[in-house]
């Protein structure tokens, strides 16, 4: 009997349940529900609101990229606006100057940013914490000016930037351009989040987290910390670059001053609000940085950023570990409520 109880206890510890369902089952249920809502939403919304939701998804992908670097691997970046810009410009230049179809520019932007991120990650290996933050800050402030340089003007359009044409829905689908781009972005988002979830749960993901938590011990376990850290930079830049590429297509316009340091800080805000290291948190971060500035402006035009600041402080106060901790807390409370009612 004693042995059996032991086994039962082990099984319970291995698969905690919330309201009769295991955690993975809940995750699957919530994912499917969210996907159904995401698929149905644009059918009930005006084009402008669909466009805004598309931007939410794009920001979420960018924040996810930052989360892989900062939340999973423990490296800071104040320069992700640079990778977003590189992705956006890769797409704009390829579409405008070379007539490449928009969907083919996405992988190109991803690869360009992967290489750029990896190369930036190599010297960044020597920098830790705050020093890395400063180096990436330099990248963020330098990028808009580099894009304005007259030697690149033939491709980048200099200060004027590049206007690109919004693509129509393919195969004669009865969708507006905004709705089509929404579904296109949704498909990319699902792919990129699924890949990130797989990555984080894999051998590579464990090595990245091990480096974040204790680089010395990670080395002793045989993890090539230098290689993983620079590759993490590359993959993170790839995510943010693909987001930038989608952003260019959806907004139909790129210009140097759309990609300032402020954008990099917005990504960081989204990361912290969503929860550092929690992959789905990037979606909440995307919603936050898309809608909260608008909301603040509605409250007071003159003091919009002050209002934004107050909202931000309130959010951090209520959810000190971001939405990640909040979700965990609510799930725990619900579970206790349900088990006490039984």
């Amino acid at each position, binding site marked *: 009997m004693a042995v059996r109880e032991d086994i039962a*206890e*082990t099984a319970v*510890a*291995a698969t*905690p349940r919330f309201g009769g369902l295991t955690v993975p089952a809940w995750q699957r249920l919530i994912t499917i529900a969210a996907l159904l809502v995401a698929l149905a939403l644009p059918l009930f919304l005006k084009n402008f609101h669909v466009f805004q939701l598309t931007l939410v998804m794009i920001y979420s992908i960018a924040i996810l990229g930052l989360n892989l670097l900062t939340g999973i691997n423990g490296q800071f970046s104040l320069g992700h606006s640079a990778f977003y810009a590189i992705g956006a410009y890769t797409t704009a230049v390829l579409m405008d100057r070379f007539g490449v179809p928009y969907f083919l520019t996405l992988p190109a932007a991803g690869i360009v940013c992967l290489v750029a991120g990896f190369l930036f990650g190599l010297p960044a290996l020597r920098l830790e914490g705050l020093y890395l933050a400063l180096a990436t800050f330099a990248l963020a402030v330098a990028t808009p000016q580099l894009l304005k340089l007259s030697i690149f003007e033939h491709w980048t359009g200099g200060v004027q930037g590049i206007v690109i044409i919004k693509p129509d829905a393919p195969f004669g689908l009865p969708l507006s351009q905004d709705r089509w781009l929404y579904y296109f972005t949704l498909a990319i988002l699902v792919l990129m989040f699924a*890949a*990130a979830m*797989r*990555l984080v749960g*894999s*051998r*590579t*993901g*464990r*090595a990245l*987290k*091990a480096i*974040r*938590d*204790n680089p*010395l*011990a*990670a*080395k*002793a*376990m*045989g*993890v*090539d*910390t230098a290689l993983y850290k620079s*590759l993490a930079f590359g*993959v993170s830049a790839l995510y943010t670059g693909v987001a930038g590429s989608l952003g260019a297509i959806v907004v139909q316009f790129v210009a140097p001053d759309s990609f300032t340091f402020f954008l990099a800080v917005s990504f960081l805000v989204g990361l912290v609000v969503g929860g550092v*290291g929690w992959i789905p948190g990037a979606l909440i971060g995307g919603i936050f940085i898309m809608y909260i500035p608008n909301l603040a402006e509605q409250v007071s035009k003159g003091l919009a950023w002050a209002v934004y600041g107050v909202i931000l402080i309130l959010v951090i106060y209520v959810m000190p570990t971001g939405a990640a901790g909040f979700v965990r807390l609510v799930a725990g409370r619900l579970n206790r409520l349900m088990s006490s009612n039984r």
Partner: protein
Amino acid sequence: MSEASRPMAGLARDDGRPLLAVSDVVVRFGGIVALDGITFDLPAGRILGLIGPNGAGKTTLFNCLSRLYTPVSGDISFEGESILRRPPHRIAEIGIGRTFQNLALFKGMTVVDNVLVGGHTRTRSDFFSDALGLPAVRDRDRGLHHDAKEIIDYLGLGPLARLPVAGLPFGTQKRVELARALVMRPKLLLLDEPAGGLNHEEVAELGRLIRRIRDDHGITILLVEHHMGLVMSVSDIVVALNFGRKICEGAPSAVQQDPAVIAAYLGTAKT
């Protein structure tokens, strides 16, 4: 102990080469000589205890073995091959695992994930195959999960497998470190003060565990330890250091009675 009662003695290399050979290792920090020509051999399947008062050079030697320090002269060879040309992250792959003096767990991860990182060198994958979740990679990872679970159960950590390590008691965290080192399937296990911070019963249990690990898995063990009772009860060979020099080497009973060792620990009586 006779050869017959030593199940792993058969694993000792036939060519007579020891598994680990430390020869004439010298380490200097600035003008200070931390290790001054240390030489000893560790045959496969044995447990070697490295003792000495504070500042004797035990930790310095340990850090040479895990390649954090490089000796200015001398050599350290493992299975006949020098390890000094290897960077620290390429020590695990040749079969040298370790634990840390003051716990070096991955705090934000669960027990099972910590242990799985220990198996990092046992499988191959990259960002691409892991992000796609290719079947071959997932199969290999499943095999590693199976081994990790076995070792977690072996160390009595089964019910804790899914918990974050950060909240566990100190002694339990030490066992997680041991599990993490074991899943690597090391030939040589380096234990840095494993008894530090443990209470009396836990130390006794640790002693039995160390011997069991050697007997069940045929793992050669080198431990650096302050706790004399533990060292003397588990070791086959004891090496005593003082001021960076080896002052004695031999069976525990002999080392315990060596005048140089007694003097090092108790101070020399002026006669």
